[in-house]
């Protein structure tokens, strides 16, 4: 289990506050995998009519249900490889590599 002191922020829309954006559309995370530098914030935005979530496989981060056009952001302070899944549709998987 990786424990991070990190910020977890809900944003009402895809605000311009993050370094990296991942779109959730057609039941896929795009792009993935994504490589970012330590300290970067990644924002996922759901573009489907169906809700999705973003849940770290190791429990490092977890969004609530994101409805259409809702976003979730997480700041990655520690280098490592982070796999994540949509808990509503577990076949949807993605990876963030933090350098």
């Amino acid at each position: 289990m990786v424990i991070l002191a990190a910020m977890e922020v809900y944003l009402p829309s895809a605000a311009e506050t993050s370094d990296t954006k991942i779109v959730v559309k057609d039941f896929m995370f795009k792009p993935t995998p994504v490589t970012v530098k330590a300290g970067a914030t990644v924002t996922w935005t759901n573009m489907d009519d169906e809700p999705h979530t973003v849940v770290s496989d190791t429990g490092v981060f977890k969004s609530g249900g994101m409805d259409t056009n809702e976003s979730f952001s997480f700041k990655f302070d520690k280098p490592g490889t982070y796999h994540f899944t949509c808990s509503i549709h577990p076949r949807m998987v993605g990876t963030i590599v933090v350098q």
Partner: protein
Amino acid sequence: MSDDQSLLSRRNALKCMAYGGAGTLFALSGGVFTPINLAMAAGDKQGAAKLGKPLFVQISDTHIGFNKEANPDVNGTLTQTIDIVNGMSAQPALIIHTGDITHLSKPAEFDLAQQLFTRLRTTEMHTVPGEHDTTDATVTEYFNRFGKASNNKGYYSFDHEGVHFVGLINVLQFKPGGLGTLGEEQLAWVAADLKGRSASTPIVVFAHMPLWTIYEPWGWGTGDADQLMSQLRRFGSVTVLNGHIHQIVQKVEGNMTFHTARSTSYPQPAAGVGSGPGPLKVPADQLAAMLGITSVSVVKHPSSLALNDTALA
């Protein structure tokens, strides 16, 4: 499919289109559960009465909070469903809700759903959560309201009129890229729960996600369901119910009948059609039919129960 045994004429089937979101009525008939169409029950009360005393009604996937194009009025279609149940000549003793009560696990959605449910004349409702009911950060909204029966575990059993009901949860221990999961603890509980019960006890198992694999690429199945089935196989009458896929799929395997319920909220595409299992947009005048049409023909001998899906269009 066996068209020659269909109970519904096309005329009756068309009549059923007048009804929107509909649950599935189960009547105990010769010790075997006979799913019949709820719209048919409402439109043809005599026919429904012949099938036996209604034991319970299954409602599923109400998705309160959904407001997209596929159905901007899920409250209305749930209300319509409740009206159909309330209008039945013999009220079922129980309602079973097989999950996705809400769309986004929000407190206001749960509150509204509970408020709508209070209109049911049948007051005893048993629930299991869907994955849409458990997306809140602490996974507490569902359990705060519906967790009492299971001591907040999500799985529980009860008996009614000689039938043993088992409610299971398969939406929490998801595995990335995989199917729903029951988990070792729950499977061990089921084994203990069923131990010592007579094989002649009719068993009804209900969960949200299908307990058999319907379409793995979309997660329409439960990875460790085989371990459950091996425990159920010795019983003479087993009915396995779920929701999740918003359409009827059913199969009979020995003494076990598997049946998925329609949603009261919006249809979903058939397995593998399109990019994923999201809301299916259909013309407004077709929505009621997508939510409400099911025909089931019944062969008189209980062991040759036949379940049929009939498309109207």
